[in-house]
């Protein structure tokens, strides 16, 4: 049996009690400080929201009183600015936010960028993009050389795309991290037509996820002059590329030349046959019906269902035409 002296037990209890009291006092102090800081933030918003409104709407001049002096006042300014940016599109207001951020918030975000805290660095990167703080572009470019997380790199590249697009393509092609297809798509949706064209020309240098995102984006943006590019993609060995290309062609809402696509009607990949049932619906009945009837007996339920629906619609249209009186 282990025996422990009562003095030792009392000492341990005392130490634990002191530790608990210390933790409680720290939590209490921390909570009080947080409340005080939130109060500073709230007070700034209550005092200056109207001033910002009047300044943005040209009802009053800018006042130095509106310049935030503490990090919590800066948070308050961020909240005000983000409320405008999320809801209001007036170019004048957005221009004033950009001007103010470049004049008064650069130091704050620069300090945050060099923080060891990942969250602070990310927040800084988000705000640089939101408020268009071009004064920190060089700092951002220097950051690219450091070891970064995928999210940081994604945001850095987005900043480059927004403010220094002539340097975007090289950084994009040789990025040290691999993005998700969703992230690639976010870039693609922001690309200008000239950058999109450059990316098409360097298609072979792209990773598969990026290729998928590029083809999907072409469909979403309905870029009519990309038809030849999409047709070339139909010869790709990767079936995912071929399916997405057919989908993008379908998005263009054009009438296809069937001789270029008929091989997909007998494709071993059901998604390709399914896309063909959609594309066939843009052709006249005499061209499409024989193929649609063939696809009615497809091994895939999805293909049969779509082909059946297309045939039924056509029959209904034909029925209506026949029922109309001939004047």
């Amino acid at each position, binding site marked *: 049996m282990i025996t422990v002296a009562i003095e030792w037990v009392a000492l341990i209890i005392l130490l634990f009690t002191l530790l608990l009291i210390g933790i409680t006092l720290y939590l209490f102090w921390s909570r009080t400080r947080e409340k005080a800081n939130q109060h500073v933030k709230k007070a700034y918003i209550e005092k200056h929201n109207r001033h910002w409104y009047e300044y943005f709407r040209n009802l009053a001049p800018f006042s130095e009183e509106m310049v935030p002096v503490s990090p919590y006042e800066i948070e308050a300014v961020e*909240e005000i600015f983000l409320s405008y940016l999320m*809801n209001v599109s007036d170019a004048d207001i957005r221009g004033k936010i950009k001007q103010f951020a470049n004049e008064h918030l650069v130091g704050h975000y620069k300090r945050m960028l060099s923080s060891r805290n990942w969250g602070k660095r990310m927040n800084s990167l988000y705000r640089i993009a939101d408020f268009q703080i071009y004064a920190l572009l060089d700092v951002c470019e220097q950051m690219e050389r450091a070891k970064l997380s995928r999210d940081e790199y994604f945001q850095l590249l987005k900043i480059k795309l927004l403010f220094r697009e002539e340097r975007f393509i090289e950084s994009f092609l040789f990025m040290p991290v691999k993005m998700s297809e969703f992230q690639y798509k976010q870039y693609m949706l922001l690309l200008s037509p000239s950058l999109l064209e450059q990316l098409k020309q360097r298609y072979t240098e792209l990773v598969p996820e990026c290729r998928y995102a590029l083809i999907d984006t072409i469909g979403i943006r309905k870029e009519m002059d990309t038809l030849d590019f999409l047709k070339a993609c139909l010869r790709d060995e990767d079936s995912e590329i071929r399916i997405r290309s057919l989908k993008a062609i379908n998005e263009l809402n054009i009438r296809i030349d069937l001789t270029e696509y008929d091989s997909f009607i007998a494709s071993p990949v059901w998604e390709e046959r399914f896309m063909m049932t959609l594309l066939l619906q843009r052709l006249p009945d005499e061209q499409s019906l024989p193929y649609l009837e063939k696809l009615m007996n497809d091994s895939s339920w999805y293909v049969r269902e779509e082909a059946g629906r297309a045939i039924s619609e056509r029959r209904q249209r034909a029925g209506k035409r026949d029922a109309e009186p001939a004047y």
Partner: protein
Amino acid sequence: MNSKFFRDIPIISEEHILNIFTLLKANVVRSRKTISVVLISVLQQERYNPDQQMELTQQMYNHLKAKLRQTDVLFQLDRLLEWGVILSHSGEEEAKAFIQRLYEEMKRTGVAGEFGDPFPFVAAIAEIGNNDIEFDDLMNESRQALSEAASWPGGPIGFVRSGKRRKAERIKVSILESNEIFKDIFRMSLQNLRFDDIQLDIRDFRDGLEFLDSDWYGSSHTHIVITNDILPRKNGMEVVYALRQMPNNGKFIVFMMTKRNAEEDMIAAYESGVDHYIVKPFNIRLFESQLKRVLVRLWS
């Protein structure tokens, strides 16, 4: 009623027009449609013998009846060679155009030449935009305007403006937005709008439930509801459904703010009872202009 009918427009005697005027005047504020009372009088009446006066009266009735609508009222005044018309749903400008057309018509048909050239009549136009003015006062002021118009070389029309001014109408505005800062931005934007005859009574709510739990939307006032589509507890569309179920839901003018810009979303919103669909981010000046237009169109 001491009135005689000619074609489809009855001619009301001066003693009976008071009741009709009172009814129409009371409807002005409720329907937000102005009426105009027009008096027409022949100048230098002493130039005409009794036969000519009878002939002239008949000619004028014929022309007035040809120009009036079923909703207008033609009344006979006790004084000779004077006529009154109440043009429903018409303001000063429409009444002025009516007099011009009448004058052109009489010139074209040769009536003017028959009785002297130019045909010597003057008119007084009184637009009624509130229900405060009394008929007798209106008649006195109109006669004063007639005599001023007769001596004024600028034209044959005088105007009575005392009944035109509209009473300030209280219109309720509700802002349903969960973002406190943006709610304040909206409130300030609305407070800065200035209208001569409209008083905006603005309240804001954090979400649809707070709005629907209030008794704020129960009154008969015209009510502009500016709502975000995404709100905690009850969202914007739920609010729209609830409002459109109400028996007097026509008083609500709903502005829906949303980030969704797909056509299907817009169609669904309009079909559910949204009046104006605003895709965020939007131009705040454009929104203000839309709102002003809505308020101006309340009176037409």
